[in-house]
């Protein structure tokens, strides 16, 4: 297990009620599982199909397997549509 930092943007920030915090998760995990954990732990169900995840500022896709390290930054990014 590793402790990683979560960064929330836009609607994810509203739902999580904060802009960042930490979570402890398995170091080897698929992106789908990672998303599932984050959605469940931070109550993001309503936007779970329209989120992209980046790890250390690199986008990950659902079928990727991720090797996380202590202190990695995972950004939870829903689209913004206003202007």
């Amino acid at each position, binding site marked *: 297990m590793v402790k990683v930092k979560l960064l929330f943007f836009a609607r994810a920030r509203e739902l999580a009620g904060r802009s960042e915090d930490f979570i402890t998760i398995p170091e080897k995990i698929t992106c789908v599982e990672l998303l599932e954990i984050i959605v469940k732990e931070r109550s993001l169900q309503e936007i779970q199909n329209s989120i992209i995840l980046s790890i250390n500022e690199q986008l990950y896709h659902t079928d990727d397997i991720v090797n996380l390290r202590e202190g990695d930054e995972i950004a939870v990014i829903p689209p913004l*549509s206003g202007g």
Partner: protein
Amino acid sequence: MLVTGIGLSGQIKLKSSKVLIVGSGGLGCPSAVYLAAAGVGEITLVDYDEVELSNLHRQILHTEDDLGEPKVQSAYDKLHCINRNIRIIPVNQLLDSNRMKLIMSKTKYDVVIDGSDNVATRYLLNDSCVLNGVPLVSGSALQTEAQLTVFNHQNGPCYRCLFPVPPPPETVTSCGDGGVLGPVPGVIGVLQALEAIKIIVGLNGLLSQRLLLFDGINSTFRNVKLRSRNPNCAVCGDNPTITDLIDYEQFCRASAHDKVGNIDIVDESSNVSVQELFKQLGKKIVIDVRPKVQFEMCHLTHTVNIPFDDIIKADGVLKIQQLINNITVQEVYVICRRGNDSQRTIRFLHDTHQDSMMDLKNVRGGLHAYSQYVDADFPVF
């Protein structure tokens, strides 16, 4: 232009270029200013909306004198004063698939700027740009955050590669409801112009395959590295399933604008007018269900704030019951900004507290109607 890497050839490219800017609002205004001033030869502006006072903090081409004017006309007038040597074409229309097809068939654009304010238009512009092979400079902003990227350029992804499924409409907050801090779309609109200039001139360093996240509160820019286009994408993939524009309002289950429609979900007998409310102020219990921040900005005297979000999620119902138990009159008026959340409140309490003695009345049209029909000095936003 004196800047190294642009020079005479770059200026000529700008002069012979054509840019479509969709939305003459918080993103489109700053974008258009810089593109016009840079000498982009032809700029087409598309917007259906009219200038309102609440636009002026961010939509910098419009002034108090323009209130009620079509935004594209107001924008045209100012841009024409900035540069009389370019062609500016105002199109005062709400964009849909057919109109977009017509616009794209008439002119071969070098760049499209997405300065729209809704999800349906974002998918429409994306698909149209993919089908016509035009790069899309996509900016968006809400409250204190913004995003910017270049889609459909140099084998980079399109909007659908990132977001194949539109967000559920009830999770989408518009600038009209959530608010937006003026300089936030300003920053992004200016950067959209910069990306457009770089595409036209042929400079490197574009925000293609990169997503820029701007946080206005912490003054931070983050660059998220994206991948090349998704070969399985429905529109730009190797075997696309979308080969023609579709009905985007249906696809997104939301309108192609950010105006709020009026709902009608309570019985006619549960409605009261704003005139009736005015007579009963101080006599009946009136609950204002707007968010606390809106109540603090302005509210009617003798009204109590219990936000709709508290009623459905937290202890709001208990507060209402306590309020009512203290007196004998059981008729309670519910009011909000436009008369929608007040109906949702009544519906929610009806469904969840059928045994209650409360007789809830919806103040039809909310505080907007109050301002319109009872007291013009009551502020609306």
